[in-house]
């Protein structure tokens, strides 16, 4: 029982950490001349390495908002899990926790999809996707699985 609990918490925390890293570290696209990311555009010109704030388009702001929302919902779901662990009756399901976690995974998915579709607008085609983008895609199934486990799980003892 304790092992199961630890495993679930570990999965949740792993998804949360991936979300944090993906949002904070600006490495969504990388290329020869520089990186074009969620928050800043850094480029190596003749004068050296300098960063500008990201383009103020509507879609990049939507991606920023969705990533932040997914972090908020995942944190809330962790907090709710601990609350429900102590207050739920025996045999009850962690519906609320699972809902929040699944919502978080949906937000990450929509954010990553929007970024994929709109990225030709922001970065040249020669640039490839960076590791923050990949981490966002990895965080999505982890969060989804974690949420589903919460919905299926029943509280014992």
């Amino acid at each position, binding site marked *: 029982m304790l092992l199961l609990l630890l495993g679930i918490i570990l999965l949740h925390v792993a998804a949360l950490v991936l979300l944090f890293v993906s949002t904070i570290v600006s490495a969504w696209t990388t290329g020869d001349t520089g990186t074009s990311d969620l928050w800043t555009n850094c480029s190596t010109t003749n004068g050296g390495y300098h960063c500008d704030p*990201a383009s*103020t*388009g*509507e879609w990049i*702001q939507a991606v920023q908002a969705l990533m*932040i*929302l997914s972090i*908020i919902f995942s944190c809330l779901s962790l907090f709710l899990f601990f609350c429900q662990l102590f207050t739920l009756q025996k045999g009850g399901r962690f519906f609320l926790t699972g809902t929040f976690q699944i919502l978080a995974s949906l937000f990450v998915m929509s954010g990553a999809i929007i970024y994929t579709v709109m990225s030709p607008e922001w970065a040249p085609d020669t640039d490839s996707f960076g590791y923050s983008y990949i981490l966002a895609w990895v965080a999505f199934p982890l969060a989804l699985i974690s949420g589903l486990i919460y919905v299926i799980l029943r509280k014992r003892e």
Partner: protein
Amino acid sequence: MIYQKRATAHLWRTRCSLYSDANTCIALSICALLKQVSLNLQMPEQSQAIVIYTGWERHALVGSDIRLSCSFFSWRWTSEDVTFSWTYRPDGSRDSISIFHYTGGVAYVDNKGPFRDRLEFVGNPSRRDGSILLKNLDFSDNGTFTCDAKNPPDIVGRPSSVRLLVFEKVPIQAGVITGAIIGVVLGLLVLIVVIYYLMRFLVARRVFSLSVRSVPGPWLGALCQWGLCQGRELKPEPIPGTDTCVAKLA
């Protein structure tokens, strides 16, 4: 203060006693002290510098006019020899050219460069305002404008730059949509939670007040105290579905 002076004098006397010519030594030391004191008195004025304020970035539409503001802060009164000068460095270029200069009460605007006939001085030097007006902007006007102001004798300062960006249509400010989406979603969440608890409270209250009808006598006084009677008349027959609730209450 007196004790300090005595102590210092004693210190110098002990130091100076090591030298052969004690009197010269003491005189030199007193000179050094006076110099130090006068320096200390002067220091606050020397450390004050002129501080120049411009915007950080300005956005404008093609064909429109824009006012670039420049003002300064100085501890001294605004002198008659106050000067303002603006220089322009296009985007991607390393050279800057001078486009405006105000000195001796006369404003000299650009009459040969990229801004000829498009620049106007709209500032008020006596109010420490050295703003200029650029008319009929074009994409080639993208660049950095630097304002340098001098208020003699306060001339030590750092020029301040403002970046001009010319757009076809003004873009939305960074973070507006982000904040809006986050705010809406969190607001909906809070609303749902509030509505859920409200419904629970109302339903519980309704169930509680309905079950008053079939509650035995001694209980009634307590319930009426709590204001849950609502003037209903007592009916002996229980409402279907509340049997179990009443059984639990009793």
